[in-house]
C-alpha cells in the first residue's frame, strides 16, 4: 500500500487533494520510526490506545484494514474500498469534477 499512497500524494501535491489516515497502531514511537523509514508524510488521526478497537474505527464500523473512503470536495462519500488504479481513477474523476464546477462558477 505505501508505495502507491506515496506516489498518489506526490503526484497530487499541488492539487486540491488530501490523503488523511486514521491510524490504529498502539506504539506511536515505533510507528514514527516506521513512518520515517517509509517516508509516510500524510497526516493521520490516531485511533487511540485501543488500536483497532479505537473510537474512530468503531464509529465508522471499520472491520477490515485497510479500509478506504473517497470523498468529493463537498464531503460526500463517492467511492469505498477502491485500490490501486481504481483509486487513482476515482480521485482523478473527482478532481476533474471539482475543476469543472469551479470554472463554471
Amino acid at each position, binding site marked *: 500500500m505505501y508505495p502507491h499512497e506515496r506516489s498518489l500524494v506526490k503526484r497530487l501535491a499541488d492539487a486540491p487533494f488530501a*490523503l*488523511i489516515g*486514521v491510524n490504529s*497502531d498502539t506504539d506511536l514511537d515505533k510507528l514514527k520510526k516506521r513512518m520515517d523509514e517509509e517516508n509516510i508524510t500524510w497526516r493521520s488521526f490516531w485511533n487511540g490506545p485501543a488500536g483497532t478497537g479505537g473510537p*474512530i*474505527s468503531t464509529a465508522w464500523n471499520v472491520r477490515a*484494514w485497510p479500509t478506504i*473512503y473517497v470523498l468529493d470536495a463537498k464531503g460526500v462519500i463517492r467511492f469505498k474500498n477502491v485500490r490501486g488504479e481504481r483509486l487513482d481513477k476515482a480521485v482523478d474523476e473527482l478532481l476533474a469534477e471539482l475543476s469543472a464546477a469551479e470554472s463554471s462558477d
Partner: protein
Amino acid sequence: MRHPARTALFALAALLAVAAVPASLVRAEDAEDSGDAAVQQPAEETAKALFERLEKAVNESRNAAIAAYKAAVEKEQKAAEAEGRAAVMPAYDMAAGMAAHIAEFQSAAARFAGTDDAVQFLTWLAMAARTDEAGKAALGTLLSEHLRSGAITRLVSMLPFVGRDLGPARVRSVLDSIIADNPHPDVQAQALITRSASRRSADPAAARADVERAAGLAEDAKIVARAKGILTELDHLQIGSVAPEIEGADLDGVAFKLSDYRGKVVVIDFWGDW
C-alpha cells in the same frame, strides 16, 4: 516484488489469525508431557485460569510451528539458491500436534459439563476443530445445552462461520431462538447483530431494525458501540452520504477535523503498520 516464500508465510499467518485454527509441530510425545503437567495442577484451578493456560499452550505450539516452518522455508531457499534451482516450498501440516490440545479442551469441557464454565472450552473446540468430529460434537453440545447461557456471546458472534456446516436456515433458527428465549440482554443483542448481518441485502429494513434493537438492549459498552457503528454505517456511510465528522488528534497530538479539508478531494485511509 515480494518474495514468494514470504508471501506464503504471510498467507499462512493470516490464515491462522483469521480462522484461529491453532497448529502445532510439537510431537505427540511432547504434548503428552504437557498433559501430565495438567493433571498435576491443583484441583481448585478456576475455569478461567485453566482456559488461559490451555490457550497459552496452543499459542506456544502455534508459534513454534510457524518458526519451524519459517526455518524450513529459509533452509530450502538457501539450498535452492546454492544449487541454482527453483525453491520447492515445504508443506505445512496444520493439524500436527493438535490432537493433544483438543483432548485437553475436551476434558476441561467435560469437567465443567452443564455449566457456563464449559462454554468457553466448547466454543474453542467448535472454532478450532470446526471440521472435525470434536468440533461438531462441541457445537452440538452448545446448541443443545447452552442456548440460554449468558456465556455464549462469543459463540453467537461467530455462529455463521462456526455453524457453516449446519446451513444458513439452521443458523438462522438458532439465532431466532436465542433472541426469543435467552434471558441475557448482551447475548440477545449479539444475536440480533449477527442476524442483521446475514439479512442485510435480502431485507435491509429488518436488518436495520435488528441493530437498532441491539443498541437499545445491550449493556456491554462494546456491544453498544458495535451496534451504533453499524447504524452509522447503514445511515451515513453509504455512497452519496455526507461523511460523518471526525474530530481527533494527529500522531503528534495536534487536534484537527475531517471537515478542515472540505473543498478538497479526500481519501480517508484506515491503516496500521502491520
